[in-house]
């Protein structure tokens, strides 16, 4: 039985992933896709720094903290921007227009980077 079912499962799994990808491509506005690309880049950069820290050296630990937290902080800010400009969340953020959300995001990012470069050493 497991022999029969196991070849059947991968197609189902691939189907699910394909369906998800297709639905994402079709239904997500371009702006959100653009934010998602940014988030993906930040995530890759953060993972790379974390691996470097764990596997090779954490010696200037302040530099690691600065680099990694700039990724994490930027990720959080970008994620909150994404939820605020998402048309589906309009009811949640009635008082926050997309322009206001972007201004918050930009201001928060500038403050974040200010701290990051101070801490980078």
């Amino acid at each position, binding site marked *: 039985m497991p022999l029969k079912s196991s070849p059947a499962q991968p197609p189902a799994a691939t189907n699910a992933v394909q369906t998800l990808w297709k639905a994402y491509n079709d239904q997500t506005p*371009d*702006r959100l896709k*653009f934010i998602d690309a*940014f988030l993906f*880049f*930040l995530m890759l*950069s*953060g993972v*790379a*720094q974390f691996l*470097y820290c764990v596997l*090779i*050296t954490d*010696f*200037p630990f302040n*530099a*690691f903290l*600065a*680099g*990694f937290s*700039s*990724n994490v902080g*930027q990720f959080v800010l*970008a994620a909150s921007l994404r939820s605020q400009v998402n048309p589906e969340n309009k009811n949640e953020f009635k008082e926050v227009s997309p*322009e206001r959300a*972007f201004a918050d995001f*930009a201001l928060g*990012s500038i403050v974040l*980077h200010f701290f*990051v*470069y101070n801490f*980078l*050493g």
Partner: protein
Amino acid sequence: MLLFRSLLCAIGLAGVVYAKSSKGDSVLVVVEPKQQDNYSIFFNGLREQGYDITFRAPKAETPAVIEFDAPSFAHVILFAPDTKILAKDLTPQSVVDLLSHNTNVIVALSSKQTAISTLAAEFSLVLPPPGSPLMSYFPERTDPATVVPVPVPASHPMLTPNLPPVWFSGVPHSLGNNPLLVPILRAPSESFAAEIDGGSADALVDAAERGGEGLWAGSQLGLVTGFQTLNGARITWVGGVDIFSDEFANKEVVKGLKSGNEQFVRDISAWTFHESMVLRIDETTHHRVNSTTPLEQYTTNDQIVYEARISSYDPKTTTWVPYSGLKDLQLEFTMLDPHIRTALLPVKGQPGKYSVTFRAPDRHGVFKFVINYKRKGLTYLQSSTTVAVVPPRHDGYPRFLSAAWPYYTGAISTSIAFFLFSAIWLAADSRDQKKGKGHKSE
């Protein structure tokens, strides 16, 4: 009167010129006036060296050893082992007072129990019961068995090398494990303490069992033992006063060979009176490598140079001369515990100078350079200098490390990505607005 004064002055000057001790040259000898002449060779030897000897009978009240809480003499010799009760200011307690005032003491014991002999126990010397002097039937001789020729150790830092045996008559002692004791002369291995002088054999056996000493026999027994207190005063315990006597000094050990007594007692008095084996630290300095100014604070991981200058006292010229003979001197860099303990070795070509270079620990706090050199017989060398070790200043750390480039890249790329993102977002915004306007106008 004037003559008298100038005479005093001349004596005083002579005293300065010929002074041999590094601690002063006044000596008080407590001895029965009748026996004074029995030790004339020893006393004259001291006088020739420049000591100023004052005699006092054991029961006399003056001159006082400590007056107005200041010791009146630099050195005290107690040659009254048979006197049961000494004067009020010569109690065991006052001997301890003398030592704490840096006065040096030579004490002679006898097989009688006196107040002073009870003090020996406080110095970790265990005496046999009263009436049990040392005796030995070897080598065969005409003298009584209690007059023993004792071979002198051939190389003892305190003694003249290759002395002939010395005559000894008196009481032995076994040594406790006090590290401040300095054994000088041991009993011959075939000698033992025996109850011939009015003691009883049972008492001797009882005391041996009770004290866990075994019998008072063999070469583990001490006859002459020094003790250097932590403040540097020296006291020498001698088992019998006769070792200083003229009779023993002139007595032959074998036909034609005079005993070593005269030189031996001079050697032990030289040690006790701070003539020999006297060292001092003249100065200590510390600085960073490639610099000469001493700092009050060092940075962690600095390379520090520590130097000490040590002199020894030369009794012949009464001067301090640089001394490079210490091979086992150590420097400790201490904050509660020694974080660094390293050899402080003599510098070749610079007599008296000891130097070491070491890296300050990667730990900040209040540290001390500590020299704590205690060796048997030598003056204790102690020095402690406090310095602070601080972390680097905010701008003292290395920057732009190659190991950190991934992190720098991460932070910079995030910033660049943020600017690109914002720019594209705003560009898309304005395009949307145009579109929106165009849609509205339609």
